[in-house]
């Protein structure tokens, strides 16, 4: 095992350093790109924190939904194939629930301030 401070702590420090120490020294295009960099580090930190649990849950749901095992990429590709073949659709029991949970997990990492995510968290979060 790795010792602390762990990657999420280090990433948090990098984002804070970029915002509080570097950004005030810059203007124009470079300031914009440093802001993008800080946002990217934040996203990576959220992925490190959240993805292990949400990936495992997504894989368990897909295994049940598809009746097959495999890694996440294989299972998602299989789901896509069956949707394209019209073997699975919005009426398939469990599909909408699965996709809502998967979307909430994706957006919690990618864009936690996005309007639809915040609305969906209220509407879908407790199902």
């Amino acid at each position, binding site marked *: 095992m790795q010792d602390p401070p762990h990657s999420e702590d280090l990433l948090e420090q990098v984002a804070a350093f970029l915002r509080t120490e570097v950004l005030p020294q810059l203007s124009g295009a470079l300031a914009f*790109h440093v802001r*993008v*960099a800080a*946002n*990217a580090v934040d*996203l990576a930190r959220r992925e490190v924190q959240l993805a292990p649990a949400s990936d495992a849950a997504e894989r368990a749901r897909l295994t049940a939904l598809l009746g097959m095992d495999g890694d996440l*990429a294989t299972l*998602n*590709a299989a*789901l*896509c194939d069956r*949707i*394209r073949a*019209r073997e699975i*659709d*919005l009426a398939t029991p469990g599909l*909408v629930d699965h*996709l*809502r949970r*998967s*979307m909430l997990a*994706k*957006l919690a990492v*990618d*864009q936690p301030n*996005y*309007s*639809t*995510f915040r*609305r*969906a968290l209220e*509407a879908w979060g407790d199902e």
Partner: protein
Amino acid sequence: MSDLADLEAGLAALAAEIRPGGGAVRNLRRLSGGASQETWAFDIDADPYILRRAPKGARPHENNPGLENEAILMQAAAEVGVPSPRVRLVLRPEHGLGRGFVMDHVQGETIARKLLRDEAFAAVRPKLARRIGEIMAGIHGIPLERLPPLRHADARTRLDDIAQRYVDTKVPRPVCELAIVWLRDHMPPPRPPRLVHGDLRNGNMIIDSRDIQAVLDWELAHLGDPMEDLGWVCVNSWRFGELDKPVGGFGPREELFAGYEAVSGVAVDAAQVRFWEVLGSLSWGVSCAAIAVADHTAGDRPLERAMIGRRASECEIDLLRLLTEEA
């Protein structure tokens, strides 16, 4: 000589063609631009102008009408009363400045978040959903014989193109697959092609405290189903957080449709507009995903592009909401 000095000298030689009586070219500055297209601002004496150009040797995107044709479209739009900057000069090869045109610099705001939040626009905001409908009806009413050659892209062509671009990203996205199937099952009936602006949304209009002053960005103009424009302006990506005001964050669909119907006399079928909103959301999501997987060695700003790729999920959650509930 620098690019800037070359351009300034070139514009100085054309000053009298741009502004009656000519004058001194001042304040030339680049506003935006990538490898293929640039926007510059400058003044001739006290009058402000905008130059849009593709530098010499730049290759236009295969789907673009081209800058000369954009200039024709803006003039045609102005003739039917669509707010449009006056085009002053279309560049010719002998000018040596690349391809493009010079237009009046229209005063107002284009930044969507300012338009949706600033007090200066509080009085005009409630009028804009209807105004956008009226303006779209004007664009769709332009006689086809007035138009330059444009690609024709109906619903099936657009969907096939987006579905292929999705496959090319090589990332399996079940929600996108569901959207493609849903769109194939909800194809609108064919209708006679009209001029479609293709990118008329919050961010591509100049607006002041009173009204929409100019429609910009005709790069995606084509012939197709006019309902495409009505669906595109409602895509959640262009509401900038105002989830419950579908028309660009400004107001309800009913007002967009009422403005459209009042000018065009054509009844709007909300289900057909919804088709185009779903297609628009899918299209934007696939574009974000494609930007991230594009050849990074060929483009600049790889981190920015990578982060745009992580915004594809915004469109996915919008699509899931569109396909499973009222949104």
